[in-house]
């Protein structure tokens, strides 16, 4: 494998958590629910995913359980901000803290303080027949773990669902103008609740990916800010799956290059490279806000009988 192929494949692998967490953020956001609990839900997803697959011995079950717990957090966000009309930002932050705390607690309760660090099998590489034999592309794209393919499918699927179907048109109308959607008989609260729930599940899977692909174990700092970056990435991608996917690749490439600099002997100090994703995010946020279209009712609750809005 050439150096380029190695770097490209590492980038593809590193893209997944960004992509899934951002798609989850986007899905809820397009219906108007703006989550800020990604970081927490990802840590929780990592913890639950790791613990279940450690206990049961199956990564698939671990991923499914992580998704279920993430869905519950998304459901709470959706329900609290529609049925109870509580502030989205406050609830999101509360859920972030709750999820972070719960993640650490679960790990300590189940694993205890024993000295030996438990390990799980990382996800195996699945070589897609024929496609994986294409030179370069085959190695980079078609001999990866299951979640790489899953993330790509989610991105493509969401694109078609949101921008090519009537149901997607209805969903986006809820985030653009809930009053208009409501007046046309689209169930605003139900739409918001299910998108927030599905979004939470995707974020948790993004978290579960980390122990299952990288470390084989759980540590509290395992997510390392990827959840917060996912928010920035969603804005960067203009709340559209195709641009979010491109942005996720860019963020991942930054990660990989910085990591390489740390171990290899690149002329630039690795500390400088490690800062690059954050500086890039900052620049992107400054410039993306000029052109990126944000759902008009992002983060704003809807009350049918309110005359204040």
């Amino acid at each position, binding site marked *: 494998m050439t150096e380029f192929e190695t770097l490209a494949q590492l980038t593809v692998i590193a893209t997944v958590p960004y992509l899934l967490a951002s798609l989850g953020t986007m899905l809820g956001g397009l219906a108007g629910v703006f989550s800020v609990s990604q970081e927490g839900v990802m840590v929780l997803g990592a913890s639950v995913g790791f613990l279940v697959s450690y206990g049961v011995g199956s990564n698939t079950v671990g991923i499914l359980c992580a998704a279920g717990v993430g869905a519950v957090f998304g459901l709470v966000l959706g329900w609290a901000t529609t049925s109870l009309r509580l502030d989205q930002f406050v609830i999101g932050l509360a859920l972030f803290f709750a999820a972070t705390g719960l993640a650490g607690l679960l790990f300590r309760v189940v694993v205890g303080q024993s000295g030996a660090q438990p390990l799980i099998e990382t996800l195996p590489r699945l070589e897609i027949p024929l496609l994986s034999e294409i030179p370069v592309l085959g190695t980079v794209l078609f001999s990866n773990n299951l979640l790489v393919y899953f993330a790509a499918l989610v991105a493509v699927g969401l694109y078609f669902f949101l921008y090519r*179907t*009537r*149901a997607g*048109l*209805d969903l*986006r*109308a809820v985030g*653009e*103008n809930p*009053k*208009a*959607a*409501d*007046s*046309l*008989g*689209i*169930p605003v609260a139900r739409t918001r609740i299910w998108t927030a729930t599905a979004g939470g599940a995707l974020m948790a899977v993004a978290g579960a990916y980390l122990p299952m692909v990288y470390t084989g174990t759980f540590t509290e700092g395992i997510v390392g800010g990827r959840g917060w970056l996912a928010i920035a990435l969603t804005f960067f991608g203009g709340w559209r799956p195709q641009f979010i996917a491109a942005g996720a690749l860019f963020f991942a490439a930054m990660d990989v290059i910085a990591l390489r600099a740390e171990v290899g002997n690149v002329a630039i100090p690795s500390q400088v490279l490690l800062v690059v994703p954050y500086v890039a995010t900052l620049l992107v946020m400054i410039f993306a806000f000029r052109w990126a*279209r944000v759902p*008009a009712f992002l983060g704003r609750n809807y009350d*049918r*009988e309110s*005359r*204040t809005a």
Partner: protein
Amino acid sequence: MTTAEQPRAGDGASAPAGRVPLSMSGVTKSFGAVKALVDADFELAAGEVHGLVGGNGAGKTTLMNVLYGLYRPDAGTIRVDGQEVHVRSPRDAIGLGIGMVHQHLLQVPAYTVVENVVVGTSGGSGGLRGASRRIAELSDRFGLSVDPRARTDRLSVGARQRVEILKVLYRGARIVVLDEPTTNLTPQEVDALFASLREIVAEGTSVVFISHKVREVLAICDRISVMRDGRRLTTVRREETDAAGVAGLMVGELAAEQSTEVAAALGLTPVGAAASDAPEHPVAGSAVRLTVSGLEVDNDHGVPALDGLEIAVRSGEVLGVAGVAGNGQVELAEALAGVRPVRSGSVTVDGTELAGRPTQRWLSAGVAYVPEDRHRDGILGAASVTDNLLLGSQRSSAFRRAGLIDWRGVREHARRTIDRYSIRTPGPDAPAANLSGGNIQRLVLARAFEREPSVLVLQNPTRGLDLRSTRFVYDRVEEARDRGCAVVLISEDLDELSLLADRMVVLYSGQVVGERARGDFDAYALGRLMAGVREDA
């Protein structure tokens, strides 16, 4: 065109014989302590345009929102085709063949016309292409021309209005409710809308036309129901009534004093007639309070909006500023109120130069401002009526004790003010945005007047207000004038200007292009000036 059609069977008060597509009875709805609807009833006949008129807060829109499932009534029954129904959401209403075009266009600006029309009908057969064809078909049949593939935010207000009607027709509505559909339309667009409505009812659909513009209601409706104070007062047939009759029913006790003001507010008297009736008001000798010279101001995009403007207003004088919207009115109003930066030139009040000074200085110099967009610029919607009345005076020593705000005094003052200006509110602590348009304007005026201003700047102060509230505004302006205030009244309504102004200037492209003294307000001459034809040209 568009006069009422031949009389139908049945007398005016009861519905014509035959199918009754809709009847509502005993509908009651409260918002907090405000009773928006009190035992209201309403009946609609097949194939009629039914006018629903009344002042601000009379309950017209609330009643129709109940019908459309947007508001849940506290009591009351709704029958569609004689069958009692429960409308819990717009989805139910659409299922019953009820469609509503709201006063504020409910569209997704970033969607195309087709997308806006089909949204919410998912499960409907065929792709967007099929929908496009159906929309084109409906457009043709009812004369609602619009390009289905155009992006909605690129369309004119008139075209967006047509999209709203298409939305309703696309869903197969047999009862179409239009809430003040003509507010932002040009006269030509209003004519076209009326022609389309005639086509729609010709096919057996019924239309409810909510409005407070008497002239339009008389032009299009077959029957007219008048609402006041949350109930239906009466229903009359078009041919049994006239403008004065409907106006009288709308305003109630004010009907007794069918004064020139009311007529002028309705636009029933031509410009000039009102002016000649009103007594001359002597201002010639009084002192100049407001002087504006060489005023240059930019608009929001940094483009010059006022170009060396010169005006002077005396104590006890009302200066009317006429002109077509977009010729610098907003910028003039904001510059005179001290909320828009003055690029160059001077604004003095009682000899004090204010240009370039902080807004607080303008306030303490006695400048009061009644903005055009009262919801956006006049109030803090989510703050209480009390807070809104305090706003701007929060640093005044009258409301301070030991360096802090004296809330007891503030509340006392709010209660007195609410009383004196008859602001209809559930209470001093209710959010200001919950008040009706007329009452929000009363609040804004109350705040301005309680400060005893020396200069009062008003822009389109009666837009969207009913007769009673309009009258209230006029009375307050005259009161301020009589107290020696210098009033600048910026308005697009020539009737209003003719009624109140002692002198009128015409604003065109950021400059004063002409001036007329009271008694010389000729609508045609003013119209030429407003169109930019210079007097000396």
